[in-house]
């Protein structure tokens, strides 16, 4: 009762998703701080042995529902089970991955339980809150910290009155760390009798397959963009590495597209797309007006260029006088070591 629950997603390969393991790690440390237990919920098919992946993260209870109809994921059946479980167990905190599954199901749960939900948290901390109007002090609330307003503000959200406090967190935000290989917890099967209604299985899956999304630089908040000065297709790969790491997209100047470094759909500027990301990293781009017209409203611009007098430096917030193949690996290295 009043414990921390983590909803564990099951991957195509039948394992617990990384994002869920990261949340178990976070859940364990929050549970220790609050001196409560950590519980996991796994709903899927052929879950035999799945507990071996979960207990080592310091999980005290695993609730499982194992049936062919629970995989692949459909909202209706999983939501019905979770709502029932949480009504019985009255968790203090529930964590979901901010994945296509977690962001689909968590709002339904919060809506049914009439409690607060905070999406895409970047940090979860325990803290107190004093409501000066009500002259009331709330102890040990979950501070749910997330960017809002297009990333222009960082908000700390709390749910003083309602339980559970529900949050979603993106993959890679929290650390994944095994607590003890032979941690001992209890495995409990969720009672599936008289739970479901026909409506819970109303959405029928006809087909699923892997298909890459179209390139979407226009809506990307972070763009790593390259020009002719990048020098080679190999160096351009560094841009892709950095963009992927930062959760951004790769853009290109016309010169880079003409040189065959990048396809046309990545072109930014007058003859390409116009972008206004939070961060624009211009690599080896001289910054002809045709290009800058398509990106000069970016919030923050970093220019990496061997030419200190490149026109793009005039609109950049930071200019790094150096070559792409030296600077980007250093950025990648620092980010990997310090981002969590």
């Amino acid at each position, binding site marked *: 009762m009043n414990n921390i629950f983590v909803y564990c997603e099951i991957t195509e390969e039948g394992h617990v998703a990384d994002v869920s393991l990261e949340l178990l790690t976070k859940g364990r440390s929050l549970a220790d701080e609050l001196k409560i237990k950590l519980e996991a919920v796994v709903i899927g098919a052929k879950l035999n042995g799945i507990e071996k992946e979960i207990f080592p993260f310091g999980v005290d209870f695993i609730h499982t529902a194992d049936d062919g109809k629970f995989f692949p994921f459909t909202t209706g059946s999983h939501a019905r089970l979770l709502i029932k479980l949480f009504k019985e167990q009255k968790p203090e905190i529930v964590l979901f991955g901010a994945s296509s599954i977690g962001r689909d199901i968590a709002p339904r749960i919060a*809506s049914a339980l009439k*409690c607060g939900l905070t999406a895409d948290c970047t940090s979860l901390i325990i803290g107190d809150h004093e409501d000066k109007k009500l002259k009331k002090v709330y102890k040990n609330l979950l501070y749910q910290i997330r960017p809002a*307003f297009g990333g222009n*503000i960082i908000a700390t959200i709390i749910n003083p009155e309602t339980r559970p406090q529900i949050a979603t967190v993106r993959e890679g935000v929290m650390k994944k760390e095994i607590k003890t290989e032979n941690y001992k917890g209890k495995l409990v099967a969720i009672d599936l009798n008289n739970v479901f209604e026909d409506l819970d299985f109303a959405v*029928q899956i*006809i087909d699923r397959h892997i298909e890459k999304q179209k390139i*979407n630089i226009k809506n990307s908040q972070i763009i790593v963009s390259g020009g002719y000065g990048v020098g080679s297709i190999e160096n351009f790969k560094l841009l892709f590495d950095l963009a992927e790491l930062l959760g951004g997209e790769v853009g290109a100047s016309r010169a880079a597209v003409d040189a065959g470094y990048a396809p046309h759909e990545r072109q930014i500027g007058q003859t390409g797309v116009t972008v206004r990301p939070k961060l624009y990293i211009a690599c080896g781009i001289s910054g002809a007006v045709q290009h800058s017209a398509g990106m000069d409203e970016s919030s923050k611009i970093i220019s990496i260029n061997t030419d200190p007098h490149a026109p793009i430096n005039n609109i950049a917030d930071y*200019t790094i006088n150096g070559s792409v193949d*030296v600077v980007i690996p*250093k950025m990648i290295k620092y980010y990997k070591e310090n981002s969590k």
Partner: protein
Amino acid sequence: MSFKIIVLAKQVPDTRNVGKDAMKADGTVNRAALPAIYNPEDLNALEFALRVKDKVKDAEVIILTMGPFRAAEIIRESLYRGADKGFLLTDRKFAGSDTLATSYAISLAIKKLAPFHLVVAGRQAIDGDTAQVGPQTAEKLGIPQITYAEELVDVNEKEITIKRRLERGVETVKASFPIAVTVHGSAADCRPRNAKLLMKFKHAKTLTELQNETKDYTHLYNDRPYLNIDEWTVDDINADVDALGLSGSPTKVKTIQNVVFQSKDSKALGTSNDEINDLMKELLDSHIIG
């Protein structure tokens, strides 16, 4: 009975258009510098609804939005593009609602418009990026949901087939009505304004807007009822006031930290480890990355 499609749309500050003047010197958001726009994914949702309308006999598309008086702008925009009617939920008592309180109000308005077949909304709004109101509304209506719709594969009076965009792939699903659908930004862009519809609905107005006119045009609106954009208050949807606004919102904002953009003065750096590391640290600390 006609086939009723309700589109949930929101007017939002254009947070993507964050130029260098978007933040004031004291670090607060300069709202005046952010124009109010039609939430981008709600335009994808409108297009999705219009495509259903194109394929199903006797279908009508109704726009439902909640916001201040001026949110009537996006209802007009929807009418220009092919929607049939619009409702604006507007009341001071809605102010401060989080996603739970919002979905409560919206679900009551939808129930008032019932019976309906399809509720369509954008996946998320760019001012909050929560993607919560669609599923929360579906739960309150007690209907199934299909999130992240990318393509309308097929639809008839009985059922709908939709391709969904997931993280690592796509999924095609089929369901009968009523159902709620949230539409992903990778779905088809919204069709442009139609010149005839623009002429027809140019003067579509809410009662509040009419009252602000210097002349009394009421008789003209009585002759052309389609020009009336209905405003609904808390009383019109019989909502419990305690479940709305700040009191109906379980989530509270404890603190807000502004991500302060530095001035335009550019800093010149070399390529030493320290210089690059300091820059990355600054970007991480200010939450621009990470």
